[in-house]
């Protein structure tokens, strides 16, 4: 894998920090006029999602991380693992609960996801920005209320709970934004 001098780090670059694959969020050149030059890095640990900061000597080098994003289709869950396929090659991957993270709340099958592989092993799954899921449980709707003011919780077929307007009923298909976890609209059928 390539190594990078801290001076050459750009946002989005993937490097190894503390034996974990990380994405550079920001690299700031810091130098007092009469003092030593530093590189102040802000980085996101791809496995935990946490953002940290660390300051390096301006001449240090970091090892690149063997990380790729692959488009995959979610197939099914066998009770323990989530199965994905690369549509072009039919290559299949089994992904554990830890790597699935929040994505498991949003997929039921057939969705196109972005799977991040580190040394060929899935570490992060990014679901589509919008998914369509059926409501399996919610309090009865209130007649005449179409404003959506107030709202109520609704459980979706994947187990996710979202806040929905009062007029939503069991069996409705909803469009949900997976980034915010918020209800967008009723899905057109």
């Amino acid at each position, binding site marked *: 894998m390539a190594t990078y001098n801290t*001076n050459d780090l750009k946002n989005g670059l993937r490097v190894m920090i503390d034996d974990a694959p990380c994405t550079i969020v920001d690299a700031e050149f*810091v*130098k007092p*006029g009469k*003092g030593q030059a530093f590189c*102040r890095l802000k980085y996101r640990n791809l496995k935990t999602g946490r953002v940290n900061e660390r*300051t390096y*000597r301006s001449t240090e080098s970091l090892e690149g991380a063997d990380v790729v994003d692959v488009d995959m289709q979610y197939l099914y869950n066998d009770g323990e693992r989530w199965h994905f396929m690369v549509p072009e090659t039919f290559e299949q991957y089994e992904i554990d609960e830890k790597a699935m993270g929040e994505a498991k709340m949003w997929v039921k099958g057939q969705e196109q996801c972005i799977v991040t592989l580190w040394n060929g092993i899935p570490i992060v799954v990014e679901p589509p920005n919008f998914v369509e899921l059926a409501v399996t449980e919610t309090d009865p709707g209130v007649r005449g209320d179409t404003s959506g003011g107030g709202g109520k919780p609704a459980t979706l077929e994947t187990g996710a709970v979202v806040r929905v307007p009062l007029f939503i009923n069991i069996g409705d298909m909803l469009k949900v934004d997976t980034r915010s976890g918020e209800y967008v609209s009723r899905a057109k059928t």
Partner: protein
Amino acid sequence: MAGAETVSDSWRPTVTLPVMRQRARLLATLRAFFASRDVLEVETPLLSQAAVTDRHLDSLVTDVQVPGQGLRRYYLQTSPEFAMKRLLASGSGPIYQIARVFRNGERGRLHNPEFTMLEWYRPGYDHHALMDEVDALLQALELVPAPARFSYAEAFRNYAGVDPFVNDIARLRHCLVAHDVDVSAALHDQARDSWLDLILTHVIEPQWRRQALNCYLYDYPPSQAALARIRHSPGLPAVAERFELYLHGIEVANGYHELTDVNEQRRRFLHDLALRQQQQLPQVPVDDRLLAALQAGLPACAGIAIGIDRLLMVLAGVDTLQQVMCFPLERA
């Protein structure tokens, strides 16, 4: 910055027309200020056969074809200081210069390898008298409020809770940990001054930026004297009569009650070269003409260099150097 940007965009300036106009007004105000105070504008060469020895400054190098002499190595100045001190020693009286300066390896939100510097010298002044004149200049630029004055020791005590003259490295390191500053293992064995630099840039300056504070920092540890004279007072730690100006928490200027002692100057040059050798940095030719000028007699004086681009950043209320420069490095 540059990145995926195409050539078709990159011919355009990164500065807006209003800020270009503001730069022109700033330069006119500066020249009027010094004209009214009988400070003489001078020009000195950007190219020099000698270079700055400071190990934290990396000079750009060029080879000049001289007829009859072949290629001669020249260094682009990192500041016009040495040439201006030769003028002072020759009896110029108070002088100023607005010059392009060059520093290799520096690029970031607040750095560009080529930038504009205002440098001036006042025979007979000490660093506090020069701070008074800087106050007057900032007033002429309608930049308020006037900067507060903190000694280096005061600033470290009040904003970081450490004594920069007394505390050991373990204590300085603990200060960074306490302020959630994580540093790479490769920095753990660095010299004391680098720990102080880390505290200044990672603990103190961020507080000043949040408060948009204007202040001077003065009386540095002697190990950071650069070209300032050192003051010894009975019962107190020796201090370097150096100062820096911060506007909105951004370092914009560095000044000295200037070192005039030729032997001390030579000693510092040689010390710098020894440190360069230790750290496997390029050796550079010492400025013998500056030493000869000091030998002939540099009048007691104070001098300061202000980064004009950063000053303009503060005046224009923008966050990056490229918003005040027509063509930063990537578009030059």
